[in-house]
């Protein structure tokens, strides 16, 4: 009876204790670092309000019914450490498994009090309370051992705490997930090669990623407002501000401008894009922007344009030259087959030189290679009557084209009328290089045939070959040339300046 009276005097006091406990739980929710710590703190609160000696919490997956986590209170941990079995063992000592099942499956609170006074191993009492979310049981709190066993009011207190505990845990979980997501985002933002920034009011920066400071050496705070314009190229500042002025109306910001690279000490081109972040009513709150280094890309594009223009120029020039060569070839003879034969030979020679030009990385042509290719085309490259000697000379494309054609004319003539046709005759091709008085490097080439009987009739094709050697080479290359038809064979000398600026044409320079 005395106990009943005490119990009837207590409801308000008890209610206050429960409310205080709920307050404690929300207090812990703010101060604990993670879900695990919070769960332990909640169990301690539940132990205090119910007088349980130890406690645990189990959470289950709603769909599979599997345990996802079991938390043991600090006091349970201490008790377990002092006795066997060790913590983490699956079965909770002495608790009837069906009691746990009734809580988790049945979703109801359960009290199991053992026989009082008996000196039996723990637990002597068990109180299980389900944790429910939207009517479904997602876990339970198990309170173990209370002197005198658990009472209805302990169950009521634990049931009152359960929603607060679950709410606190869920909030903590969301908070942790958000923090993890923010960390991932931060790693991403700081790890990407782009500079990332935030801005308000038409380009007033509020934040810049570390890449900005690393690239520009401008402090992050100094980039705020319009401070970021300082490392922008002075010529680009006005333009980029105009783009910002239109950005709100257009709902996007796209601009290419140069930003000074602090360690390289020069400006590099950046492609900048920004997208507005809008509130629920569609108003722009701020802008998120990225700036990507496109300097290398731009330079490659410019180079490509130069190359295409140069290529166009070369193709059109060579076509014009081919047409001229054709007219001249056609003018020399009325025999269509002869014209076709000569023209084909000249075209092939031009083509061979083009191939060698494009094959070498420098665009230069090895002189010996050029001569050998030409002789090879008539099957005379390894004739015992032939000697080729000279130092290594790399001809620029322009010189290679003209000299290649001259070698072709000389070769064709030698095959038809000269040293490459006459048994016992010899062909000697040699060259040297020297500096002339003007300090210009010159190539001096001698084509010399010996042992060729005198030809009474000058071959018709000499017209083109002679013009090429005596007129075109001097005009085109500033060469000094001579071509003699002597007893014993042709002797041709070609002296060509090889100025250094011809060494690598503009369009080959990176």
């Amino acid at each position, binding site marked *: 009876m005395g106990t009943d009276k005490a119990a009837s005097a207590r409801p308000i006091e008890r209610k206050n204790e429960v409310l205080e406990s709920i307050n404690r739980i929300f207090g812990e929710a703010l101060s604990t670092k993670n879900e695990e710590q919070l769960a332990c703190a909640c169990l301690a609160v539940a132990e205090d309000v119910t007088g349980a000696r130890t406690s645990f919490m189990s959470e289950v997956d709603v769909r599979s019914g599997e345990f996802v986590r079991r938390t043991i209170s600090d006091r349970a941990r201490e008790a377990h450490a002092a006795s066997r079995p060790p913590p983490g063992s699956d079965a909770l000592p002495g608790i009837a498994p069906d009691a746990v099942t009734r809580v988790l499956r049945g979703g109801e609170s359960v009290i199991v009090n053992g026989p009082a006074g008996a000196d039996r191993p723990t637990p002597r009492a068990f109180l299980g309370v389900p944790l429910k979310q939207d009517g479904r049981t997602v876990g339970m709190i198990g309170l173990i051992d209370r002197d005198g066993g658990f009472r209805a009011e302990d169950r009521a207190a634990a049931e009152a705490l359960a929603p607060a505990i679950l709410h606190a845990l869920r909030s903590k979980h969301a908070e942790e997930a958000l923090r993890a997501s923010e960390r991932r985002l931060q790693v991403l933002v700081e790890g990407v090669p782009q500079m990332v920034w935030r801005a308000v009011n038409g380009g007033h920066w509020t934040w810049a990623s570390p890449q900005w400071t690393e690239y520009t050496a401008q402090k992050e705070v100094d980039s705020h407002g319009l401070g970021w314009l300082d490392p922008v190229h002075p010529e680009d500042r006005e333009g980029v501000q105009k783009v910002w002025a239109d950005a709100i109306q257009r709902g996007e910001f796209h601009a290419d401008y140069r930003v000074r690279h602090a360690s390289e000490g020069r400006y590099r081109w950046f492609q900048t894009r920004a997208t507005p972040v809008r509130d629920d009513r569609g108003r722009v709150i701020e802008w998120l922007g990225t700036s990507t280094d496109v300097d290398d890309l731009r330079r490659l594009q410019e180079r490509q344009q130069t190359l295409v223009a140069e290529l166009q*120029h070369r193709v059109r*020039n060579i076509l*014009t*030259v081919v*047409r*001229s060569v054709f*007219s001249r070839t056609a003018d020399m003879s009325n025999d269509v087959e002869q014209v076709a034969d000569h023209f084909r030979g000249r075209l092939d020679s031009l083509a061979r030189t083009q191939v060698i030009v494009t094959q070498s990385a420098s665009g230069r042509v090895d002189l010996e290679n050029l001569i050998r290719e030409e002789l090879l085309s008539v099957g005379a490259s390894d004739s015992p009557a032939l000697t080729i000697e000279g130092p290594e000379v790399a001809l620029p494309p322009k010189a290679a084209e003209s000299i290649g054609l001259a070698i072709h004319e000389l070769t064709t003539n030698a095959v038809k009328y000269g040293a490459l046709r006459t048994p016992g005759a010899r062909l000697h091709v040699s060259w040297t290089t020297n500096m002339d008085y003007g300090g210009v490097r010159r190539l001096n080439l001698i084509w010399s045939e010996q042992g060729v009987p005198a030809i009474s009739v000058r071959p018709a094709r000499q017209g083109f070959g002679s*013009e090429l050697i005596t*007129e075109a080479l001097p*005009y085109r290359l500033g060469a000094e040339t001579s071509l003699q038809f002597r007893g014993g064979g042709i002797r041709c000398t070609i002296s060509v300046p090889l100025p250094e600026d011809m060494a690598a044409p503009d369009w080959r320079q990176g």
Partner: protein
Amino acid sequence: MTTASGSQAEGARGLQGKRILVVEDEYFIASDLKRAFQKAEAVVVGPVGDVGQALALVAEQAIDVAVLDVNLEGTNSYPIADRLSERAVPCLFLTGYDGWSLPEAYRDTPRLAKPFAMEAVLETVARLMNVPPHPAG
């Protein structure tokens, strides 16, 4: 027969005795131009392949009209056009590029893209000389 009517046609162009400056760095093109003008009984000044030589000719010789390759070994022939313009000598540009944006000063200067038809060169040159002298003159 063809030769006779050809020379008649050339004569009808009105190029006889006209002094035509040819600036072109490619020998065969220069040589073709020279032959075509000579066939039309014009007097060819040059041909030359670089700006320096061309400017020397402009300074020393009487010139009625000029044919200029725009790209002379990577340098452009605008200085020659400028000097000719000062003397009210008309000129024709030959270019190897598409999308070539000529500076504003030369926008009214006629041009032909390579490879050009010789007929077009002869016609254009003849037309240029029929243009009355500069109003300023």
